[in-house]
């Protein structure tokens, strides 16, 4: 294990960004990923450990001109308790409700879920549905620099993001969805609580009479990162959700996903799960 030589507790974003400039820094928020990963040897501490939990500016859900900004330290419990999230972003609310356990939800932050970038990270799937943007702040030479990038650019691979080591993830932003936009999230695990998703699906669309418009589909744990499913979206866009459309959408999923076999499920089983769960969700939408 690396020897941690320094411990930093910044109070502001500027202070944290300054501290990150010095290189080998490990950030922690809730610790629910970092603590077990460091104990198992999967994650190694840098020479400096930075506790970002005292940065008040990183907490809370704020209204912006175009929608909402969710601070990195917002916990899963905060999301689950938020009427704005429940009403405006039901897929994100559902993902928070199905997340781990009360004790973990009270500690786990949305920033940690994003930065950890697990292919099974549960908030990532709805955030993809809402075309969320990740806000990264650094302080290369005195002045603060902000980089705002789409989720699809942020997520690079399992546990890999395009965040530079000198950047702090400060928030995730979402535009208010178009009028009439409804969204759902479905997570499949082998037990009801405390389960890492075997697969998960997020679905959002505007219902235009019988047809779906502005269709957005995201799938978790079926590729190296949670992904948008453009082929499925195309198969649904502007269509009446009948048996033929559902069948086309389900087979289109094979063009989007690239599941692996691991201890939770085989590649074959994940294909089956995506097919069956997508079919079930779409039939439900067709009837609802």
């Amino acid at each position, binding site marked *: 294990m690396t020897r941690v030589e320094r411990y930093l507790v910044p109070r502001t974003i500027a202070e944290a960004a300054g501290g990150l400039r010095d290189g080998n820094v490990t950030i922690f928020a809730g610790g629910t990923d970092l603590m077990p990963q460091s104990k198992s040897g999967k994650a190694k501490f840098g020479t400096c450990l930075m506790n970002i939990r005292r940065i008040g500016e990183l907490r809370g859900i704020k209204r912006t001109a175009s929608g909402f900004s969710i601070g990195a330290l917002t916990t899963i419990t905060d999301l689950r308790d938020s009427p704005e999230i429940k009403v405006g972003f039901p897929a994100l609310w559902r993902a928070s409700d199905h997340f781990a356990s009360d004790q973990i939800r009270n500690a786990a932050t949305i920033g940690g879920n994003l930065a950890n970038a697990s292919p099974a990270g549960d908030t990532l799937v709805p955030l993809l549905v809402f075309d969320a943007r990740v806000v990264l702040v650094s302080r290369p030479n005195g002045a603060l620099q902000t980089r705002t990038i789409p989720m699809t650019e942020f997520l690079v691979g399992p546990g890999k993001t395009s965040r530079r080591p000198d950047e702090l993830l400060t928030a995730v932003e979402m535009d208010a969805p178009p009028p009439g936009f409804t969204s759902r999230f479905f997570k499949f695990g082998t037990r009801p609580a*405390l389960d890492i998703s075997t697969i998960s699906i997020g679905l959002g669309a505007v219902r235009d009479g019988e047809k779906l418009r502005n269709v957005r589909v995201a799938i978790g744990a079926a590729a190296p990162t949670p992904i948008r499913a453009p082929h499925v979206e195309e198969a649904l866009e502007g269509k009446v959700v009948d048996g033929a459309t559902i069948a086309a959408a389900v087979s289109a999923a094979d063009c989007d996903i690239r599941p692996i076999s691991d201890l939770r499920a085989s590649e074959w089983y994940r294909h089956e799960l995506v097919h069956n769960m997508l079919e079930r969700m779409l039939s439900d939408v067709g009837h609802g």
Partner: protein
Amino acid sequence: MSATVDIAFTLNGVETSIRVPVTMSALEMMRDALGLTGTKYGCGEGECGACTILVDGATVNSCLLFAVDCDGRDVVTIEGLAANPLGERLRASFVEHGAVQCGFCTPGFVMQSHHVLTKSPHADAEEVRRGVEGNLCRCTGYKKIVEAISAAERVG
């Protein structure tokens, strides 16, 4: 050895200061450094809830919490519920309903159900079940635990 840091926090109502290694968990601090062994080490990875403590009024798994993050906060362990009315009712109800067998999971269940009933005093069985979904019991089969928690409002 990693760096150590001096921290100060309220532990079960008492101002406490201690020097801890920065990589230590709050669970290790409670049991090994402070001698409060009511908080149990079950899995060490967030799966069983035996290590549940209250920090600023919300329950967390102390095995996942960095000890240094307790600095400046209000921390309550099972020892701190000894003289607490709801804690007392919960304990009595667990005994009355036969919800304790080996007892290893009990401190975690009492901490978590204390939190559930504080947030929602008239929680129904379903709310109780959802509330304690992060706590495992290898002995009782949960039925008696859920009954004990649901009845705690009326016991005593």
